[in-house]
């Protein structure tokens, strides 16, 4: 009974949502609204989890956790001050605009360097035909820069992009779509139960 209740619940609401999406849009909207509300509650629990874990580390004087807890409390206080009209009402937004966004952008800009190092490591560790092919394709794709000899590679680059990359990507996406359909069917028929073992 304890195990079959979540399964029955999931099956009923899964099928109701499917019927709603196809035939009764209002019903689907209602159930999806409930799901959205539950997801928002889960996000709050997630923030609680983050706070508790870092509080324990902050007690042991972990500098990262101390910073995180301090920032979390500061943002909550600023948000409250904005809400109570103690500030101009825009401080939390400005904090994100001038602090969070530049930090995220700076971190994102490291992606190119990480990929470069990863490419070097790949060639050091796995000197097989696939590593060689990967490096060649990366070089060819990076060639549209106006450099001497670039014109020679442009047709090759266009061919790789239009033929092999597009075909490969479409094949991958068709496979993913088929996998999604069959997994969804298993969920709807109750033969896949990630919530109840």
């Amino acid at each position, binding site marked *: 009974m304890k195990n079959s209740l979540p399964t029955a619940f999931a099956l009923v609401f899964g099928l109701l949502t499917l019927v709603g999406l196809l035939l009764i849009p209002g019903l689907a909207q209602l159930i999806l609204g409930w799901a959205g509300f539950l997801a928002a509650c889960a996000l709050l629990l997630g923030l609680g989890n983050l706070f508790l874990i870092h509080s324990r580390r902050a007690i042991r004087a972990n500098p990262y956790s101390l910073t995180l807890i301090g920032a979390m409390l500061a943002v909550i206080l600023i948000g409250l001050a904005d809400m109570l009209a103690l500030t101009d009402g825009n401080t939390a937004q400005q904090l994100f605009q001038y602090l969070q966004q530049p930090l995220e952008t700076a971190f994102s800009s490291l*992606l190119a360097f990480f990929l470069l190092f990863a490419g070097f490591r*790949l060639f050091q560790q796995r000197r097989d035909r696939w590593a060689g092919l990967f490096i060649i394709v990366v070089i060819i794709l990076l060639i549209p820069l106006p450099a001497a000899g670039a014109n020679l590679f442009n047709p090759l680059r266009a061919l790789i992009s239009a033929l092999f990359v597009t075909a490969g*990507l479409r094949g*991958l996406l068709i496979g*993913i779509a*088929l996998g999604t359909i069959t997994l969804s069917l298993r969920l709807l028929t109750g*033969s896949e139960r990630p919530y109840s073992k």
Partner: protein
Amino acid sequence: MELTTLAILFFIILTGAGLMALTYRTQKGGAVKLRPHPGYLTLQKQVGQAVESGQPIHISLGRGSLSGRANPTSVAALTILNHLAEGSCANGMPPTVTTGDGTLLLAGQDQLRQVYHQAHRPAEYQPGMVQFQASSSDPITYAAGTSQVVNQQAWGSNILIGQFGQEIPLIIEAGSRAQAEQIISTDDPIALALAYPSAHALIIGEEHLAAGAYLNGQPAQLASLQLQDILRLLIIIAILLATLMGLLVSL
């Protein structure tokens, strides 16, 4: 009723009936042979390696919400988590799990709680074994938080399963510095391309969604792979026919 709705209903009923028929056939002993997958073979070795080396496993479940479009990707990730957690928790080497979504946090905690309960060690379960890093709308923050977890200690393996995007190299780089074996399983083409240079094993696209068949091998899971193959064959025939018709019309 619109024609599109009718067509979708017809397709769902047809594929549902096909899945049930193939499941029945598999239950009655119909053989389903899976090709050996290097990614899943490497994944299955991780628990043993962690126990032998004394270095635990870090698993990141990605940031795909169970209440959104990424549901199948995250369900497959939970299947892999369950498989790894069963072995590692029974051997006293629990994994540390990170996630970028609230629904996955709760599902992950529930998985570990159930695994400990099945291993008759319910007292050893701690909710902090699954850690929320950032909301799914902040991929870079999620990657920064997860990288910090990876940097904290020596890991035997850094396993990234679920929905990731262009933030994945940041987590992989932390795993590379920790010299952990890195296994990536996702269905995002961008994340796959970015993960390729550093991953020791890669589970690509639909293979990620076939996690249940490879790790549990239940009849319905095996039957769904057969159904996928049949549907794929039909799509290939349809593409070839459409191309042929296009050529004939242009002539």
